[in-house]
């Protein structure tokens, strides 16, 4: 079981407040992703849950017990670090067995658990190697192996994929999601990459400057962002945020429209302008256009759409999917 509740948790270093006050409920078995730009306090929050940082205020309750002041090892959580933090002088076996050894378990039990973990993670052939002899993805799996043998109440991941190349990142994303379905253990995952958040999470927590901007399922956040920050952060390419006269026409300070919710045409439409840079991805084409009286607008269209730089173009936003934000940045 692994439900985690944060009650008015706050953190400040000296006089600078990093996290003002956060309340959050994480249910058993959920895959929660903390996402936000760098420096928004998401890693600090994770480290506070892990017990590696002291709380300045508030309480952390794990499975109904107040763990705010407990040592990291007593909280029953495991963590996968950004640098993997493997022990370089131990073999893969030694690394995975270390938490069990520290727990004082019997050799035969340790052996079985390590072999099981290695089997799940496809590491059976590498048990005698040292971390220095492994590739990035394998090291990552060893770090996860070290985390799962303890059978923790929850896993904490601190930007675990940021050191991998793009292809491997895609694979590991699938593997971690798969692992979550197999183990059904609570997972808290920190990332600055909204793609990771969207693809893996049951629940996304968007953080900005230590505050929670919005909590919800990936599609909730995509469909109805509560404010300009979430609107701009979730979705790729990012939402077009239009200010000025065009926004005022819709009785809003900021008008948001996603690139995929704009119809593009060479002959007619609501907005007219010129084509700027075009990015062909094969399946999709991103066209950055310069619209008269509005400025830059990005459009996503199918892969076969052909344009030239400087060509006149017409755009029509989908009226049903416009997002209107007030002067305070909140949705209207």
């Amino acid at each position, binding site marked *: 079981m692994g439900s985690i509740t944060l009650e008015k948790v706050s953190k400040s270093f000296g006089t600078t407040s990093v996290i003002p006050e956060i309340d959050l409920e994480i249910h058993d078995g959920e895959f929660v992703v903390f996402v936000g730009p760098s420096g928004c306090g998401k890693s600090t929050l994770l480290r506070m849950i*892990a*017990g*590696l940082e002291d709380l300045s205020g508030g309480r952390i309750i794990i499975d109904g017990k107040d763990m705010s002041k407990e*040592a*990291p*090892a007593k909280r029953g*959580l*495991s*963590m996968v*670090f*950004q*640098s993997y*933090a*493997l*022990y*370089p*002088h*131990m073999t893969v076996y030694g690394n995975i067995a*270390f*938490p069990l050894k*520290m*727990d004082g378990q019997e050799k035969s039990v340790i052996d079985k658990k390590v072999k099981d973990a290695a089997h799940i993670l496809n590491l059976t052939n590498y048990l005698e190697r040292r971390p220095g002899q492994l590739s990035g993805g394998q090291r990552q799996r060893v770090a996860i192996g*070290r985390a799962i043998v*303890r059978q923790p109440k929850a896993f904490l991941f601190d930007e675990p994929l940021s050191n991998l190349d793009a292809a491997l990142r895609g694979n590991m994303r699938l593997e971690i999601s798969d692992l979550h379905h197999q183990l059904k253990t609570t997972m808290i995952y920190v990332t600055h990459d909204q793609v990771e958040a969207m693809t893996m999470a049951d629940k996304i927590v968007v953080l900005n400057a230590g505050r929670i901007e919005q909590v919800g399922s990936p599609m909730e956040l995509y469909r109805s962002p509560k404010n300009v920050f979430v609107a701009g952060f979730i979705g790729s390419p990012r939402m077009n945020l239009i200010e000025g006269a065009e926004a005022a026409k819709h009785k809003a300070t900021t008008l948001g429209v996603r690139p995929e919710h704009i119809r593009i045409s060479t002959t007619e439409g609501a907005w007219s302008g010129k084509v700027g840079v075009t990015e062909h991805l094969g399946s999709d084409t991103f066209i950055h256009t310069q619209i008269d009286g509005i400025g830059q607008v990005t459009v996503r269209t199918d892969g076969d759409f052909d344009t030239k730089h400087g060509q006149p173009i017409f755009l029509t936003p989908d009226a049903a999917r416009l997002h209107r934000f007030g002067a305070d940045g909140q949705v209207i």
Partner: protein
Amino acid sequence: MATLQTRATARIMMSPAVILLFLWMIVPLVMTLYFSFLRYNLLMPGTEENIGFLNYQYFLTDPAFFTALANTLILVGGTLLITVIGGILLALVLDQPFFGQGIVRLLVIAPFFVMPTVSALVWKNMLMHPVNGLFAWIARSFGLQPVDWFAQVPLFSIILIVAWQWLPFATLILLTALQSLDGEQKEAAEMDGAGAISRFIYLVLPHLSRAITVVILIQTIFLLSVFAEILVTTNGGPGIQTTNITYLIYMQALLQFDVGGASAGGIVAVVLANIVAFFLIRLIGKNLER
């Protein structure tokens, strides 16, 4: 050094330095070898002639030789033991953040800047002197009989002095190694349930192993030839209780004016140092390969 041409150029450019260094090493060595086969005593000038291995025979059968050999090894081993263990402990303390860290680090390094002769004199006259020394004063203020260090435990006293000089070196090397330990590894071990002692045994000590090897190797080289501390404090005495190989050779050459015998001793010392180095490398050198 990518191409053949650059490699050749590099060799030519390096050669003056290499040749000079080579001569610097080979000329004294060959001369020492040559002298070691001569009857060459400064008190009997003009009688130099080749006497084969007689110098070696005299040196190796000298009863003082084996005592000196044992003293050398005890001196090296004892100093290594104190400096490595003390160095690890000091490095662990200095790695903690505390007020006045910079000044304390400077103070710890200071003994290394004191010349061996000076530090030996300070220890002899101000600390270990049985009448005026600080240790004697401390002993007396507790109502104890002061220890006459250089008469009662002469070799241990020398080891203490030499260890005091080399402790900063060990501390410095081990401290830098300690600072390069990845913080996330420590945190990972903490989350894995390892206490402070387990973290030290399973994480810190393996991480330090390479630095410890470096400390042992470098210190051994210098400790085999400790001389000034002995000359200033005990003159190899009482008897030959603190005579090491270096000091024995000095006595041979400059107290008995036997250049030939001393040269033979010098060659024996070179061979011994190589034997020690061989075993050291075999024993701990594999740490350096990783």
